[in-house]
């Protein structure tokens, strides 16, 4: 210890600084603790956290527009939709390339489905356009093949746009070798003919994925001619002359011929296929959702939409989610309240009975936990339906006329009754565990001080049971707000929750982005509730056991 000076940092016996030494000692403990929980942690991460995060991320993800129509989107960004005019010819020309390329891979229908969420009708327009896409490229194809029949040949295109390495690899490749070599573009061609190079890259990728024929031998897509004609129209002679390889001569010749071609009006071609392309509205939708990330799903989830004038309400007949959120919130509150009113006395009795009797009753409280949720919900169907037990008894008693049996199910009443029953244990258990800790002497003390039974309860017992009420309510409410099966089975149309809508979008309409946005809002609402609760009551005051 002689080397420990008064001024320097404290050192351990071996001379390392004490802090470092301590950190090392603690790190081992921490690692050991981490190793113990690692299996569960990894399990939860892989099966729970990552999928949920991925799912929630879909609520803002929007790459499909810019991935499917890359060139169109780039040109469209400078279009001013407020003029009321459709975009200029170059945008349609770019669309001709993008759309043909997309339809080769059948991506246009996916995009149509996506844009249809924002502007109903676009899906059918995209499908229709997809069917007519082949005609759009015919004119350019004819021009190039008339110029030189070699343009019909896949090898011409490969030699023009593929790098020498790729061409060499492809020459060696045969079908028995497995997958084709990965495509790499010819650098000079890519800079001189950017659009054509992009399209050929997609062409080579598809050929490689299908892997039936070599890309070199495959018949070129018509879109390649469309793209090449447009590229040649804008390319400088120097950049064209820089392109070498076997097809360099063909390219030079084509480059010289293109200025003489009569311009093709792709605008007219598209409008011929579908009138929708002449509407500013359709283009606005594409422009609005061109960004890679979009608030569109979230806006949709609260009945708003993006428009050129900014964010505005959706048309009345499309507004549904705010109403559903509101219904979910107030019905969950009502259910929580019903649970509290029914559960409080039960918990009180449980907490104040002799242990042996309380245990028997506790089993009755827990019994529903051991019964399948579906069974319990189905039991309510039996009870509540118009030909069900309750109605039968009421009719038998003469309280209700046989012709006017009560509608107790497939409405909000059914949801509230069934969910109150199902969530009741979640209220009773926290209440019970809190009440168990309130000594009976408090009530006695209050009474000895002159309080009536009610005053003693309300002023002394009730405030001390508030942590249990808080815990039970927050538990019931959070469970209720996300409930799905029971509202689905007994809720009809009036008694369904937002989660039923989320399930619909996940499994039926396949609008996962909207489902993720709705789910994120629900999650946010629960977290907000938790935060507010923490501020008001204090999460330390919550006792679950």
């Amino acid at each position: 210890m002689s080397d420990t000076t008064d001024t320097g940092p404290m050192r351990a016996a071996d001379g390392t600084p004490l802090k470092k030494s301590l950190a090392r000692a603690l790190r081992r403990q921490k690692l050991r603790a981490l190793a113990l929980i690692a299996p569960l942690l990894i399990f939860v991460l892989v099966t729970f956290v990552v999928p949920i995060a991925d799912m929630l991320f879909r609520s803002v993800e929007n790459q499909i527009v810019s991935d499917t129509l890359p060139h169109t989107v780039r040109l469209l960004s400078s279009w001013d939709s407020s003029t009321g005019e459709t975009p200029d010819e170059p945008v349609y020309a770019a669309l001709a390339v993008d759309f043909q390329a997309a339809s080769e891979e059948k991506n246009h229908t996916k995009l149509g489905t996506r844009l249809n969420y924002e502007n109903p009708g676009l899906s059918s327009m995209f499908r229709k356009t997809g069917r007519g896409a082949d005609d759009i490229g015919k004119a350019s194809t004819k021009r190039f093949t008339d110029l030189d029949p070699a343009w019909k040949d896949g090898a011409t295109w490969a030699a023009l746009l593929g790098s020498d390495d790729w061409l060499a690899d492809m020459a060696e490749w045969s079908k028995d070798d497995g997958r084709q070599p990965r495509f790499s573009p010819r650098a000079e061609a890519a800079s001189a003919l950017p659009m054509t190079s992009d399209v050929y890259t997609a062409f080579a990728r598809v050929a490689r994925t299908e892997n039936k024929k070599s890309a070199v031998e495959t018949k070129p897509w018509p879109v390649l001619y469309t793209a090449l004609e447009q590229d040649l129209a804008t390319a400088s002679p120097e950049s064209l002359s820089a392109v070498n390889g076997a097809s360099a001569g063909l390219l030079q010749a084509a480059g010289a011929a293109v200025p003489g071609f009569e311009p093709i009006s792709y605008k007219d071609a598209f409008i011929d296929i579908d009138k929708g392309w002449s509407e500013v509205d359709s283009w606005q939708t594409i422009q609005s959702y061109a960004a890679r990330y979009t608030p569109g799903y979230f806006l949709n989830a609260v009945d708003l939409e993006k428009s050129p004038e900014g964010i505005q309400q959706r048309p009345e007949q499309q507004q549904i989610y705010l109403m559903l959120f509101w219904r979910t919130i107030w019905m969950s509150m009502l259910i929580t309240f019903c649970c509290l009113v029914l559960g409080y006395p039960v918990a009180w009795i449980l907490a104040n009975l002799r242990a042996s009797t309380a245990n028997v009753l506790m089993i009755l409280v827990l019994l529903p936990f051991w019964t399948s949720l579906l069974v319990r919900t189905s039991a309510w169907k039996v009870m509540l339906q118009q030909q069900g037990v309750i109605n039968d008894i009421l009719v038998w008693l003469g309280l209700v006329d046989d012709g006017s049996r009560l509608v107790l199910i497939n409405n909000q009443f059914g949801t509230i009754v069934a969910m109150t029953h199902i969530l009741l244990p979640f209220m009773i258990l926290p209440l019970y565990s809190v009440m168990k800790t309130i000594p009976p002497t408090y009530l006695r003390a209050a009474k000895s001080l002159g309080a009536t039974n009610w005053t003693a309860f309300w002023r002394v017992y009730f405030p001390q049971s508030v942590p249990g009420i808080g815990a039970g309510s927050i538990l019931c409410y959070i469970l209720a707000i996300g409930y799905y099966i029971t509202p689905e089975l007994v809720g009809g149309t009036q008694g369904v929750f937002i989660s039923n809508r989320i399930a619909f979008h996940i499994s039926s309409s396949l609008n996962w982005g909207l489902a993720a946005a709705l789910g994120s809002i629900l999650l946010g609402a629960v977290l907000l509730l938790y935060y507010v609760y923490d501020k008001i009551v204090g999460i330390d005051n919550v006792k679950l056991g």
Partner: protein
Amino acid sequence: MKGVVLAERVENRAVFRFSRVKGLERLTKSNTGSPNLTNAKTGGDAAFVEFEHVQKSYDGETLVVKDLNLTIAKGEFLTMLGPSGSGKTTCLMMLAGFETATHGDIRLGGKPINNIPPHKRGIGMVFQNYALFPHMTVAENLAFPLEVRGMSKSDREAKVKRALDMVQMGKFGGRRPAQMSGGQQQRVALARALVFEPELVLMDEPLGALDKQLREHMQFEITRLAHDLGITTVYVTHDQTEALTMSDNVAVFDDGRIQQLAPPDVLYEEPANSFVAQFIGENNTLLGAVKEIKGDIAVVELDDGELIDCKPVNVSKPGERTRVSIRPERVEFNKARLQPGAHTLKAEVLEFIYMGDIFRTRLRVAGNDEFVVKTRNAPDQVRLQPGAQIEIGWLPQDCRALDA
């Protein structure tokens, strides 16, 4: 040691009891302190609380309280003392109204209260763990009984302040019970039980959770307050020191019955039966049979054949088995101090323990190895050495022949 300390306490208490009358006079004359809280009537003989043939059973099979008859005078400080399960707390709870008597009458101020609910009895109560409402401040706790009685806010505040001052807790009104020490909580609980000026206050082992020093201090505080305010107090404890130092009368409970009801000094010096003798203070017992009774003196033949003189308490005829009880501090081994002709016993010194103020000597007497003698540490005191053979004796009235 305990016995000596106790004896001194008893003396102190006598002085204290005398001085409290003075204190009361002073209080009423100068009209200081808390006149509203002062009950003008000081201890009278009229029965204020009466238990008449009270029985209590919880399960319908066994009686927890068996035929209880008890009268408590106004202004009296009565302690119910007994081991756990002796029925003392049940009695208190019946008086408070939290348990109903299975049989018999309980009267308060002459009126039967069996069917009056607890909140209408107007009895103050201090609970074992104070039962201060944790969600209220000290002041709110104290205001609670006044509030439920519909008292106006200003009156409430004045009374709460006075009650807090009375227990020297004036500054703590804004605290929560959890922010205070046990002793402070105890004072607040006391103030809360007194703030609505009940004529009767019940205390259920209120000092059980405090450490020794604080407990002794609070014993003094409670008796002072009770006597200053002229309140009738029923105090339940299993701590005999508390019972002896605080009470006017002590009721010793065992097996659901009052074994003896007497002032502390009588209880200690003249236990009525062997349970009381053993429960209160330290005690030497010798077993034997009565040989003959001559007036105030009974001659007892111990099991080893030796004869001793005793005072007959629970024995009436020769031949009866008896348990002879002698307090350790009343055993004498200095022959000069014994009455001439008194019986003496041979004893062997087994152990000598120096305890500072006293010496504690363990002897073997009549086959009993646990016979203890306590002597004061005076300058001329003899220190007995282990192994020494001595003779011991006592005054016949200090040696009581009780039931076996």
